[in-house]
């Protein structure tokens, strides 16, 4: 396999990885703070993509309008479901919240298809040719996607590590009871968490819609790879989610050069298996016993 093919595959992996890092980050934060794997994250992405399509059809061709509308709507929906479903279940086992989140996923998806039907939609983005550097092809659209994702991630990590809110979030993630007894209002933290989760899923959904086509299963189909990447990086660890998603995507793309595209998904899971054999807690995760 020549170097150019591998570099092209790696670039493609980076683009997909950066894009999916946004919802993966949302998943890992919800897991760290609200303590359950949020199966509705994929369908929140789908909602974001459909909102952007709706904005293009009814408001303006500008993608910026679509991004703003999509992130706002998914954030509101996310907070709504927190108040309606996840908050009442806060004291139940995390299994009941997981099951509830699957239900939320169905509600979101079926509400969308009730209005839009099952057919595909497309975000109107002008198609431009790739920049070609001796066979290494880079798409301008992909550059924008990666840049937007990087800015969003930078803001998120600033919030987490440079602000009061972030410190509170990390405190709740570390030990809910201790955080509460130190005077941290968990309600405030939870509302921020679900807003951020909604924003990130929505943004990820729009970017995904630009790259692919907007169909009802858009986000749901990506839930398993995203969960796997979160586990790979260490559950509940924000940097881990990003690194895990990147590794997973790059591994998947490069593997498809060697084993054929039909096996690229299993190959990504092989990477996951190998890492977990060496580090059962994930790349950045802390061993549970040390707590």
């Amino acid at each position, binding site marked *: 396999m020549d170097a150019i*093919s591998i570099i*092209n*595959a790696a670039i*493609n992996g980076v*683009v*997909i990885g950066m*894009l*999916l890092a946004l919802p993966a980050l949302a998943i890992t934060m919800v897991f760290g703070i609200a303590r359950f794997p949020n199966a509705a994250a994929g369908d929140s992405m789908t909602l974001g993509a459909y909102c952007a399509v709706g904005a293009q059809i009814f408001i303006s061709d500008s993608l910026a309008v679509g991004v703003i509308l999509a992130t706002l709507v998914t954030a509101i929906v996310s907070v709504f479901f927190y108040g309606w479903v996840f908050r009442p279940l806060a004291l139940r086992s995390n299994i009941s919240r997981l099951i509830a989140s699957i239900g939320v996923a169905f509600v979101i998806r079926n509400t969308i*298809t009730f209005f839009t*039907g*099952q*057919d*595909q939609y*497309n975000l109107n983005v002008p*198609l*431009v*040719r*790739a920049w*070609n550097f001796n066979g290494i*092809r880079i*798409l301008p*659209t992909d550059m924008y996607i990666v840049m937007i994702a990087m800015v969003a991630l930078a803001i998120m990590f600033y919030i987490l590590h440079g602000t009061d809110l972030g410190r509170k979030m990390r405190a709740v993630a570390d030990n809910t009871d201790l955080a509460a007894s130190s005077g941290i209002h968990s309600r405030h933290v939870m509302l921020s968490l679900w807003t951020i989760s909604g924003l990130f899923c929505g943004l990820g959904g729009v970017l*995904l819609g630009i*790259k*692919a*086509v907007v*169909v*009802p*299963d858009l986000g749901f*189909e*990506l839930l398993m790879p995203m969960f796997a990447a979160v586990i790979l990086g260490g559950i509940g660890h924000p940097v881990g989610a990003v690194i895990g998603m990147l590794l997973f995507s790059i591994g998947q*793309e490069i593997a*498809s*050069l060697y084993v*054929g*595209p*039909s096996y*690229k*998904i299993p190959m990504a899971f092989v990477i996951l298996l190998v890492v977990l054999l060496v580090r059962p807690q994930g790349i950045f995760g802390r061993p549970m016993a040390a707590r």
Partner: protein
Amino acid sequence: MNQTYNIDRRRFLSTSAALAATSILPQWAFAQAADTFRLGSLNSITGIGGPYGPAMLESIRLAVDEVNSAGGAAGRKFQLFTEDDQTKADVAVLAAKKLIEINRVQAIVGIWPSAVGLAVMPLTNNAGLIMMNTCGAPEMQTENKRGLAWMFQASNAVFGKAFAQVARQRGFKRPAVMAFNNSTFVGLADYFKKTWEAEGGKLSSLVIYEPNQTSYRTELNNVLATKPDVIAMGSYKPDATILLKEWFQTGQDCKFIMPGWTANKDLVKALGKEVTEGIISISNVANTEAPAYKSYAERFQAKLKREPDVFAAQSYDMVITLALAIESAGAKADTQAINDNIKTVTQGDGEKVSSFAQGRDILRKGGKVNYEGASSSLTFGARGETVPDFGVFEIRAGELVRKETIPGTA
């Protein structure tokens, strides 16, 4: 509180036990009222079949309404039970079991993907049910051991051969094949390869790709690296949209041959005229000149505000064919007798008819009919397959332009 809970649980237990018992009860539970025919419709409403399934179900409803408003087939009205298979074989098996064991349907129509058709056929065969589908996998024919399955769509063996023939006729030298990983399109890819290599020549590459991916760039780069002059794509609309978008962005010159249910006006709408210019689209087009098509398309248009696609037309034909076969077999006929009449009413030297009512009137007078369907003239081969002629189209400035018709070869 406890009390009510217990009663509910008991009631739940007893009803589920009763349900379980009825499903174990053998055939006498089938003792059917002569005035209805229980018809199951198993459609791919959600999943990758989403762009096609809902219209298929609507077409089945249109046909059921047509038959019922004409007084039913041999006096038996259709009672329709519908299920969504989510375009997944495992879901389809559960849904088919429900249709067979709980709804006790006597025929299942509207099955779209081959993966579902192949998974459900053992069930319908065991239960002795008629099964009408649009599946294209060549295995559908070899598995059709009891002759109860009817393929309204051309086999992908036929499609693969037609693709290869067109590629050769157009003077392409280095074709590549990209196919969606399911039994339908892998079949198409295999037969393309066989046909191409049988007449001498080699494929530049053959790639089977995974469903539901965000990007197919790595797969596409691999294929484009072998410098093909044409790519035969076995694709559905969503994946074809992504692939063509990514191909256009690479800037490499290449032509495409695609099935008509993917390369159509919707694809032009999704991608624009520049990307789709010159795509060769091959399909067994709906029988657009036939009176059956015109009358059906009008009703379809009124309901869904667009032209029916070929799968929708095939679904309509399934119900009408079945109704005519029931009419021809008589009110007391069992499933096997009805099945034996399917060929009788669709081919041979009978009078050509284009609607259920028209056919029924002739049958009642003791005449013979040959239903000319909305999807094709409906001539079934020995294994329940149809071998239609193909229309070859090219997309020019966003319009499908008909180039030639090539006869299908089995």
